[in-house]
């Protein structure tokens, strides 16, 4: 018997900022749409364990797209003369366009890192469009642990190798070897300058300290889960953010770093499944 996984991948054309983008996404399961947002400089493969988890896919239609420039989603035509930079506005537009184009009705959105950060903007601007929002490694602001993202894109340092090496420290020591290196492989494959372009949003444009207090969780529950070994978005960053948002629910996850869903899927599901059950029960 062939060992086929339930994950199916397709390409979709989206108009973003007036340009055609060919966007790759994968999905598995049926039920409540659960749109998953990958971390900076990585791609939707980070969610393959969720998509292969029957406890999730029994009730949720799990979808994960590769952002343009990431994974199997190419940059738009003309990219060769541009520098890729992710902005808050562009990122919100991408997510909302993906959801409306596919006709997903009041989905749950789960995002990690940059994806966790943008969830805060989705909560502020579009709360009524979502059944619930889940931010992993999410904060309104993180004090930087790097002050020169130029190392990620220059001719005398291999961008993939240095990205993987930098990210290795954000994985908890307890995470299994296989999933640890699987997580790093995605970083090693990232296109030149893409991780750096994402970090513009993570580090500069995505400073939401002045606005997270506007989030109204009565329209849409907001869950924030952060790993204890994450020194990029620390548990303190998430707790400080949550303290400004009435009704936000916080969990600090043991033995997890910056990539819960891909570095240690078995540990992460212990924290995620109760959240997904709660969201389902609240309908």
């Amino acid at each position, binding site marked *: 018997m062939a060992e086929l996984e339930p994950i199916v991948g397709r390409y979709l054309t989206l108009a973003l900022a007036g340009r055609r983008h060919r966007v790759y996404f994968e999905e598995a399961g049926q039920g409540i749409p659960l749109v998953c947002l990958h971390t900076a400089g990585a791609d939707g493969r980070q969610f393959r364990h969720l998509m292969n988890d029957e406890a999730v896919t029994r009730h949720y239609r799990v979808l994960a797209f590769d952002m343009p420039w990431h994974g199997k989603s190419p940059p738009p035509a003309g990219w060769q003369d541009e520098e890729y930079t992710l902005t808050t506005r562009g990122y919100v537009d991408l997510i909302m366009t993906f959801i409306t184009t596919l006709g997903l009705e009041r989905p749950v959105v789960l995002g990690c890192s940059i994806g966790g950060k943008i969830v805060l903007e989705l909560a502020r601007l579009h709360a009524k469009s979502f059944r619930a929002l889940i931010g992993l490694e999410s904060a309104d602001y993180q*004090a930087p*642990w*790097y002050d020169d993202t130029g*190392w990620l894109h220059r001719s*005398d*340092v*291999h961008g993939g*190798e*240095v990205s*993987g*090496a*930098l990210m*290795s*420290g*954000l994985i*908890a*020591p*307890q995470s299994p070897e296989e999933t640890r290196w699987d997580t790093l492989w995605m970083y090693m494959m990232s296109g030149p300058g893409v991780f750096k372009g994402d970090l513009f949003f993570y580090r500069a444009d995505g400073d939401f300290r002045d606005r997270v207090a506007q989030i109204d969780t009565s329209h849409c529950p907001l869950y924030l889960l952060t790993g*204890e*070994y994450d*020194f990029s978005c620390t548990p303190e960053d998430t707790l400080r953010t949550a303290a400004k948002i009435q009704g936000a629910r916080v969990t600090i996850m043991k033995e997890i770093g910056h990539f819960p869903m891909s570095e240690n899927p078995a540990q992460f599901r212990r924290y995620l499944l109760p959240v997904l059950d709660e969201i389902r029960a609240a309908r």
Partner: protein
Amino acid sequence: MPGVFETLPALVNGNAALVRRGRYCTTTFLVEVGDTAWLISVHEGRVEKVERGPFLMRAWSFAVRAPAAAWQKFWEPVPAPGYHDIFAMTKGGHARVEGNLQPLMANLRFIKDLLAAPRRRA
């Protein structure tokens, strides 16, 4: 922390996968454990020389400096959050990384694994 760095040549050079990972790395870098300075000379992924300071006019490419207590936590079998990575330690104010960082960044995984190699002894 006497003893830790003396074991580095055996720990690194005896690990074929690690030597392969560092095969493009040739440099001499400084590690400070509190007041004690160490110069570590690497040639194509092999630790050729480990010297204990003080040094008077020796050149090095980059330096990693931390108090002895911080290194001790870094080398725990399962280090606590904040002490599990050199950049976790720099962000937390427990370590400093200085000098010409190009050789470090170009060989970052190798250098990180080299510095963490004593962890395996526990």
